[in-house]
Every structure is written in structure tokens, then in C-alpha cells.
């Protein structure tokens, strides 16, 4: 199969892939095209594909109707908080599980595996009550809390640390370095690709998280992007050009980051699955 495919089969491969690509990208193109139409243009039969004049008005209206700057800020804080804490804590725990011997280690690792297998909905009501009791509902902190530690991250980074040799540890010990120093100065930098993968994975899923932001923060000022735009529908029920403008505003930052860092995104996600 690694020999060059024949020209005939190449054509067939490209046709199949292009049909798939059209199916994948059409909703995004339609989103952008609709966001530039007047309401009359959007409801033509048969549909008018391109707007006569691109209606930037729609963007202005939506931008004025919802506090998007706050949504961006809240989402940014949520992502930064979850990525920083969960990556650091997971790396620490993963290093301990992979490279140290101590009583309780296996029980801890079983706990990690168990958590990974349980669907998240089972945690959500008690987490909500906990955050409520701490008086943190409707705060950006609330958005971070469920993602502060990560069993999955611990599991993933453990794989990375297992691949690193043990003898660096022995050598550093002879030189009198403590285990903490060995972790931070030697092993942590070497696990960088694992940390980046986990960071991307955490950021993407924090950005896509809907149920937790929806229940934890009901005051609009404290909403994340994904929860915030669900309130658009209430305001612009059937004004689809403006709904689509809101959608474009909400997905643009992530899509731009993705296009710039596509390699890291795709390889990062690929390394979080499979083996």
C-alpha cells in the first residue's frame, strides 16, 4: 500500500476525501456566509449563497447584546487555571507513580484508573453543592475547580515518565540532589512534549465544556463562551444572521489558534489516545 497508488486510484481517493472535506467544512462556511447576510437574504428560497454586502452590522449588534469581552476573559481564566494546575499536579503525581517506590502508590494509581472510567455526570451535583457551600457560584474560580486535578493527565504523563531512563535519578542522587530537585530540574523538562499534549487537550476540553459552566455560573458576567452563546438563542430566536455572527465570534479564537498550531494540536490529541 506504500507503493505509489496508480493514477486511477489516486483520483478515486481524492474524490472521496474531497466529498468528506466538503461535508466537514460546509457548516463553517455557511456560518460565516449567513453571518454577513440581511435577514431577508438569509430567508430566500432557493437560498442565496453570498450576501450582497457583508453586513458587519450583525457583528456589532451581537457584540453589543452580549458581554463577549467578559466571556473571552472568563474562558481564558478557566483554561489557564485548569491547564496550569492540572498539568503541574498531574506531572508531580505521574512522576511519583512512574519513578518512586513508596507504600500506597498502587492504591493511588488504582484510584486514578477508577476515576478515568467513571462518567463525569456522577460528580457534578456534589461538585455543584461543594462550590455552592464555598460561596463560589458565579465566580471565575468556579469554572476552574472541577478541572484542578486530572486523573487522565496523571495516567497520560505516567506513560511519558516511564519511557525516561532511571539512571539519571541515580546519578543525581550521588551528586546529592533531593528527589524534588531531580523531578523539577531533570525529569520535568524532559517530559515537555507530554506536558504540551496534555495542556492542549485540557484547554480544548475546558473550552468545549458546557454543562458545568451552565450550572455553576448563571449570571451572564461570569459565563464562559460556550455557555454564554447559548443565551443568544433566547435573544435572537430566529434572527439567524445574528446568531451566526455570535457563533463566529465564539469559535474564532480557538479556530485561529488551531490553524496556527495545527501540528501541535493534531499530534497532541493523537498522543492522548491509543496506547
Amino acid at each position, binding site marked *: *500500500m*506504500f507503493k505509489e*497508488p496508480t493514477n486511477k486510484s*489516486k483520483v478515486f481517493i481524492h474524490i*472521496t*476525501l474531497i466529498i*468528506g*472535506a466538503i461535508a466537514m*467544512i460546509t*457548516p463553517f462556511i*455557511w456560518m460565516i456566509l449567513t453571518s454577513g447576510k440581511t435577514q431577508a437574504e*438569509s430567508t430566500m*428560497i432557493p437560498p442565496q449563497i453570498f450576501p450582497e454586502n457583508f453586513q458587519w452590522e450583525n457583528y456589532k449588534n451581537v457584540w453589543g447584546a452580549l458581554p463577549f469581552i467578559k466571556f473571552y476573559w472568563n474562558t481564558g481564566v478557566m483554561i489557564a487555571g485548569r491547564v496550569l494546575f492540572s498539568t503541574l*499536579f498531574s506531572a*508531580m503525581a505521574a512522576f*511519583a507513580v512512574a519513578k518512586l*517506590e513508596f507504600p*500506597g*502508590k498502587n492504591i493511588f494509581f488504582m*484510584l*486514578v484508573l477508577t*476515576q478515568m472510567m*467513571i*462518567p*463525569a*455526570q*456522577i*460528580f457534578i*451535583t*456534589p*461538585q455543584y*453543592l461543594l462550590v455552592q457551600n464555598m460561596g463560589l457560584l458565579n465566580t471565575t474560580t468556579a469554572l476552574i475547580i472541577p478541572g*484542578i*486535578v486530572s*486523573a487522565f493527565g*496523571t495516567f497520560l504523563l505516567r506513560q511519558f515518565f516511564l519511557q525516561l531512563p532511571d539512571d539519571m535519578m541515580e546519578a543525581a542522587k550521588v551528586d546529592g540532589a533531593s528527589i*524534588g530537585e531531580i*523531578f523539577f530540574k531533570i525529569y520535568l523538562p524532559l517530559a515537555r512534549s507530554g506536558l504540551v499534549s496534555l495542556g492542549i487537550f485540557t484547554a*480544548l476540553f475546558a*473550552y*468545549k465544556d*458546557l*454543562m458545568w459552566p451552565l450550572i455553576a455560573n448563571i449570571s451572564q458576567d461570569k459565563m464562559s463562551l*460556550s455557555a454564554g*452563546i*447559548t443565551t443568544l438563542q433566547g435573544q435572537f430566536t430566529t434572527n*439567524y444572521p445574528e446568531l*451566526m455572527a455570535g*457563533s463566529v465570534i465564539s*469559535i474564532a479564537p*480557538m479556530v485561529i489558534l*488551531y*490553524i496556527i498550531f*495545527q501540528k501541535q*494540536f*493534531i499530534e497532541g*490529541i493523537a*498522543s492522548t*489516545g*491509543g496506547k
Partner: protein
Amino acid sequence: MSIQSRAKSKNISHGNREKRSMMFWGWMLIAPTLIGLLILNIIPVIQTLIMSFQNVSTFGESTWVFFDNYKRLFEDPKFWLSLKNTLLYGIIQVPITVALSTLAAVLLNQKIKGVEVYRVIYFLPMIAAPAAVAMVWRWMYSSDYGLINSFLKFLGFSGNIEWLYNPQVVIWSLIIVGIWSNVGYNMILLLSGLQEIPKSYYEAADLDGAGTVQQFFKITLPLLTPQLFFVLVTSIISAFQVFDLIFVMFEATNPALSKVQSLVYQFYNETFILDDKGYGAAIVIILVVLIMIVTVIQLIGQKKWVNYD
């Protein structure tokens, strides 16, 4: 004390000190994750289980009702519908998604131009917030002005399908979006599996005169089974938890909602809209049991078809 035994005892105390320092650092390093997991995950599992046997009032006072929540569930036609919708969605969406992801991954693993571009486009749905995705699909599904009905009309069909309101159709509308959202992600996972298959296998098969189709079934598919198994298990687990798309595509007053709402949607609704946390907890427990059963069946079944070597 002889010199030898002194050296020996020094060694032991050195070893003990090292053991103690390892234990100290081990516990220090796992502490944040351990405490976090206990507070945010392990204790909540127990709390949810307890809650499912209680009636929890708005102000957090709970009274024991034992199996009442579960009894109510089994008599609730809405619950049976949610269960049916969840199963239907998982059973139809996942195999189609996995089949299409495999096809896309195999095609992208060929020596052709533009692989990078295809990869970026196929993965794009994974990047967008589900609320935005659901909103644009809702618009495309619009029966009068939607792109999909217009396209069907263009192809010569009647093109007046009520994608969002016809009770017989709604689950399919959800399945289509589900497939669209997940193909790229699974494709990436499968593609990295394909890239690990040694090229020499194909070269040998070429020498033996095996054709492309034969190579696919004799080499590619068997060697891809570990990734296929992983993708299948994780896809079913996440399909059984479908919520976001339903929440945004079908408004709460949509009369066809009961034909598309999932267990997680019903859990959300009972717990956070109707504020019946005990009843919601019972729904979640059923969901967890369902997912566990299906996962265990897959783990047992894998021996029959997954190739580890």
C-alpha cells in the same frame, strides 16, 4: 563491632533514610492530585449514590426515601424514552462514525498530495464549541430556509423534512451531527495507529501479489484492531453521555424533544431545572451502570477480535 558489620549497619541506615525520603517525596508529589480526586471525584460518587436514595430539597435537607426514586424511574415513560434514545444514538452513531473514520484514516495514509490540508479540515469540527456547532446545524436543519432541505430539493427530492420537529426524524438529525462532530477525532487516533504498521509487511504482500483490498483485510485491519478497540470503547462511552447538541438544537418547548432527549439531558433537567436532585442522581446511577455493563462486555468481547502483538 567489626569494620565489616559497621559498614553494613551504615548501609542499612542509609537505605532506610533513602526509603524514608522516597516515601516523603512520593506522598508530597501525589498529595495535590490525591486530595483533589478525593474531594472532587471519589467522595462525590458516594454522595451521588446516597442522594439517589434520598429526596433532596432545594435547601439541601435530605430525607431517606430508599428505592422510591428508582421505582419512580421505572414507572416514568420519559425515562424509558431517554434510555431508548441514548441506546439508539450510541448504537447507530458509533459504528457509522468508526467506519467513516477508518475509511478516512486509510485514505489519508496513502502517498497522495494534500494530506495535511485534509487532516486540518477533518479535525476542524473538534475545535468548535458544541454550542456554536449545534446552532449552525439547527440553522441548516431549518425546514423552510435550511441549507439541507434546499440541497435535497435541488437533488430532486421533496425537501420538506422537519429535521427538528418531526418525532420520527429528530434522532437521525442528532445522529448526523454526532457523526460529523466525531469523525475527525477518531480519524486522527486511527491514523497514528496506521502509521505504526511496518512498511515491510506491505512490501512482502506486494511481492506475494496481494491486491490492495486483500492487503487491507489481511494486514491493515488486523493490525489496527487495538486502536479500533480503543476508539470504539471511548466513542460509546461519550455517545451515551450526549447532552450539548440536544440542549442547543432542541429548545425545551419542542414537542419532539422526548424523542431525542438522552439520559444525561434528563439528568440535567431533573437536577438543575426541576431541582429534584435525588431523582437526577438515580438517573445518573443507571447511566453509570449502563456504561459499565457495555464496557465490560466490550472488554470480554475484545479477546475474539483484537490483536495484541
